[in-house]
C-alpha cells in the first residue's frame, strides 16, 4: 500500500497521530493540575481544621475564694457551672490564697476559659448531653459565654487540658534548637565551602570530602537521630531531650545543605575579581575575605535560611534524641529539656481527645506560616541581590 507522506488533514494516520499528540499534552497538563489540586486540597483541609483553635469560648463567672477552694480550686466555681468552667482556670486558686491570705473569703468576677468539650460544642464539633446543651445555649444567649481570640494559644505552653494548651514553650524550644544549629552549622559549613572552593588542591582528600558531603545530604534524617543518640548523648554525655543535643543533631544534618549552597554562591563570583585582587598583591585569604565573601554573602544567607527552614520542620531525629517530652514551661537554657514545634504537633496528633485535633492543625498552620515566611525571605533575598556578571 502506498502512503502519502505530505500532511493531509484527511489522512487517517496523520489524524491519529495528531489525536495522540493532543492526548499526550492533555495527560501532562492533567498531571500538573492534579498536583495543584492536591496542594489546594491540602491547605484547605489543614486551615479548615485548625482555624477554629485561634478562637476560644470564655465564661464570665464569679469566683468565690471560700474555705473549700483553699484546698481544691474547683470549689470556687458556682456549683451549677462546674461542668462548664475549665478546671485548669481555677487550679491556681489554692496557691493564690496561700501566697496572699487576704484573698480568702473574697470573691471576684472574671472571664475564664470553658471546659474543652463545651468549647468544641460551641464550635459545632462535638455533641453534649441535652441538659448541658440547654444550659450552655441559655448562658450564650444571656451573654455570659463569649468567644474571643485565643491569645493563650500563643502565650502558654503545653497542657493536658486542651483548652489551656499552647505553643509557646515549643516555639521557644524551636528557637533555642535553631540557635544551636545556626551557631554550629553556619561557621563550619561556610568554612568548609571556602576551603573546598578557594583553597583545596585537587587531590584524593578533596574528592573524598566532596563525595562524602553529597552523600551526607541524602542520608535519611532518622539516621542523624541515631548518630545524635549514640555520639552526643551516650559518648559525650549531652543531656537527653535538651535543645543542645537537638541543635547539634540538626546541625550535622544542615551542614551539607549549607556547604552545597555556599559553594554554589562562591562559584558564582567570577574569576576576574579574584585575579584582579591577586594582581594587587592580596594573599589568598585577603582575596576571599575582602572580595569573594562580600559578593557571595546574599547567596550564602539564602542557602542558610533554606537549610534552617528544613531543620525547623524536622521531627524524626529529634524524637530519637528524646525531644518529645511533655514541656508545660518554656525552657530557659539549652541544657534543659525542651520540645520543638513539629514535635509538639506530633504529640498533640497522638492525643486521642478530639479537642486536640484542632490544636494540632492550628500548630501546623503556625509552623507552615513560619516556614513559608522563611522560604519567601530566602527567595526575596535571592531576587534582590542576584547579580548577573
Amino acid at each position: 500500500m502506498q502512503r502519502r507522506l505530505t500532511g493531509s488533514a484527511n489522512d487517517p494516520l496523520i489524524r491519529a497521530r495528531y489525536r495522540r499528540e493532543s492526548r499526550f499534552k492533555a495527560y501532562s497538563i492533567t498531571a500538573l493540575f492534579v498536583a495543584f489540586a492536591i496542594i489546594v486540597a491540602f491547605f484547605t483541609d489543614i486551615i479548615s481544621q485548625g482555624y477554629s483553635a485561634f478562637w476560644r469560648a470564655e465564661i464570665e463567672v464569679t469566683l468565690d475564694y471560700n474555705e473549700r477552694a483553699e484546698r481544691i480550686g474547683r470549689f470556687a466555681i458556682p456549683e451549677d457551672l462546674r461542668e462548664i468552667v475549665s478546671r485548669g482556670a481555677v487550679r491556681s486558686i489554692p496557691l493564690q490564697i496561700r501566697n496572699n491570705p487576704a484573698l480568702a473569703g473574697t470573691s471576684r468576677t472574671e472571664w475564664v476559659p470553658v471546659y474543652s468539650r463545651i468549647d468544641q460544642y460551641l464550635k459545632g464539633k462535638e455533641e453534649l448531653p441535652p441538659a448541658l446543651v440547654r444550659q450552655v445555649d441559655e448562658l450564650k444567649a444571656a451573654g455570659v459565654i463569649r468567644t474571643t481570640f485565643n491569645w493563650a494559644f500563643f502565650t502558654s505552653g503545653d497542657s493536658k487540658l486542651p483548652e489551656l494548651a499552647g505553643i509557646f514553650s515549643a516555639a521557644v524550644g524551636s528557637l533555642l534548637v535553631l540557635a544551636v544549629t545556626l551557631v554550629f552549622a553556619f561557621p563550619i559549613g561556610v568554612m568548609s565551602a571556602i576551603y573546598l572552593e578557594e583553597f583545596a588542591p585537587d587531590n584524593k582528600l578533596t574528592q573524598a570530602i566532596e563525595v562524602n558531603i553529597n552523600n551526607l545530604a541524602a542520608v535519611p534524617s532518622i539516621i542523624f537521630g541515631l548518630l545524635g543518640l549514640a555520639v552526643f548523648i551516650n559518648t559525650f554525655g549531652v543531656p537527653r531531650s535538651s535543645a543542645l543535643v537537638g541543635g547539634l543533631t540538626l546541625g550535622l544534618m544542615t551542614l551539607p545543605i549549607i556547604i552545597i549552597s555556599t559553594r554554589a554562591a562562591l562559584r558564582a563570583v567570577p574569576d576576574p575579581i579574584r585575579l584582579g585582587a591577586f594582581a594587587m598583591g592580596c594573599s589568598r585569604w585577603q582575596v576571599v575575605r575582602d572580595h569573594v565573601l562580600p559578593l557571595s554573602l546574599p547567596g550564602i544567607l539564602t542557602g542558610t535560611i533554606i537549610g534552617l527552614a528544613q531543620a525547623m520542620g524536622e521531627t524524626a531525629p529529634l524524637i530519637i534524641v528524646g525531644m518529645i517530652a511533655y514541656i508545660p514551661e518554656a525552657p530557659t537554657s539549652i541544657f534543659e529539656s525542651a520540645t520543638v514545634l513539629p514535635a509538639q504537633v506530633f504529640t498533640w496528633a497522638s492525643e486521642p481527645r478530639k479537642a486536640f485535633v484542632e490544636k494540632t492543625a492550628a500548630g501546623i498552620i503556625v509552623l507552615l506560616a513560619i516556614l513559608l515566611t522563611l522560604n519567601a525571605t530566602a527567595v526575596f533575598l535571592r531576587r534582590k541581590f542576584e547579580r548577573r556578571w
Partner: protein
Amino acid sequence: MGIGLTTLLLLGALAPLGYLAFRLGRGKALQTMASGISMHSRPQQYGWYSVVWMGLPALGVAIAAALLSVFGVIAPSRELVLIVSLVVAILGLAQGMRAIRPEVRARNALDNIIRWLLLSAALISIITTVSIVLSILFEAMRFFREVSVWEFVTGTVWSPGDTFLEAAGRGDEVGEGTSFFGSVPLFAGTFMVTAIAMATALPIGLLSAIFMSEYATRAQRGIAKPILEILAGIPTVVYGFFAAITVTPIIVDIAAFFGLDASYSNILSPGIVMGIMIIPFISSLSDDVINSIPQSLREGAYALGTTHSETIKKVILPAALPGVISAFLLGVSRALGETMIVVMAAGVRPNLTWNPLEDMTTVTVNIVYSLTGDLAFDSPQTLSAFALGLVLFIVTLMLNLVSTYLVRRFKQKYD
C-alpha cells in the same frame, strides 16, 4: 565548676588577652617601621600573628584535655585545665611578641593557619560520616551478638515485645526464646509503602516535568515550578497528620463503598501521601534533565516529521532516561528513610501481606518505637533499632551512589 562555666571563663579570659596581643603585636610592628626598618607584612598582620601565638596553643591544651576526659583516659580537674590554658596563653603571647621581627612573613603564616583551620572544618563532614558508620555499626554488632544475622535477615516473625518483659525481670512469664527478630515483615512494609509512593509520584512528577519543560511558556513555568516546590517545603509531620486524619478515613470510606474492608492504619494512605511529598523531587530533577537535552536532538526529530509528543516519547525521554532513573532512585531513597508519615499513619503490627488496605509496619516505625520507650539502652529491642538503621543507611547510600553515578555519566554525555 560546670563545663559551661569553664568554657565561658576560658573564652572570657582569652578575649581580652587576644585584644591585648593584637594591640601589642601591631604596636611593635608600627614602632619598628617608625624607626625606618621595613617589615615584610602589614602591621595588623603582625597583630593577628601574635593573637595566633597566644590563642592557638591555649585552645589546643583545653580541647586536648576535654577529649582526654571524654574518652576517659585521664580526667584533670576543670580548674587545673583552665589555669594551665591561661598560663600557656600568656607564654604564647610572650613568645609571639619575641617572634615579631622584620623578616618574619606574618602574612604567609596567617594564610597557612587559615588554610588548616578551613581544612579542619571541612573534615568535620568526614568525621560525621565516620561516626555514623562507627556508632551504628558498633551498636548493631552488639545486637547481632544476641540475634543471629541469619534470623534477622530471613526471619518472618518480628516480636521484640517479650524481651521487654525479660528486661523487667519477668522473663519466666513468657518462657524462653519467645522474642523474634525476623525483619522480613518490616522490610516488606517499607517496600510496600515505597512502591505505593513511587507509583503515585513518578507519573505525576514526570508528566508535570514534561509539561513544564516542553509545553509550558516561560511565564507558565515560572509560576508552576515554585508552586510545586511548596510541596517540598512542607514538614513531614504535617504530611503525617494529613495522612492520618484526612486521607485514611477517605480510603476506608472508598473501600467500604466497594465492599472492601480497610484498616484504619492501612499502608495505602501513608504511601500515597509520601508519594505527594516526593512529587517535587521527581519533577524538578526530571525538569532539569529534560532541559539539558541539547536542542539539536529535538530539531533533528522535528526535521524527520515527528509530532511534539512523538519527539518527547521517542527522542527526549530515552536520552533523559539516566537522569530520570537517578531522580527515581533518589525518590526511593527518600521514601525508604521517611519516618514521620509512617509513624503517624501506618500501623505498628508487623504484617506480611500483599494487600495495601491492611495495616503494615515499616523499618523506620520500629526504629522510633524501640527508642522512645523507657527501655534500658542495651536491651535487644533498643539495639535492634541500630541494626535496622544500619541496613537503612547502607541501602540509601547505595541508591545515592548509583544515582550520582548516573547523573555524572549523563552530564558527561551532553555537556
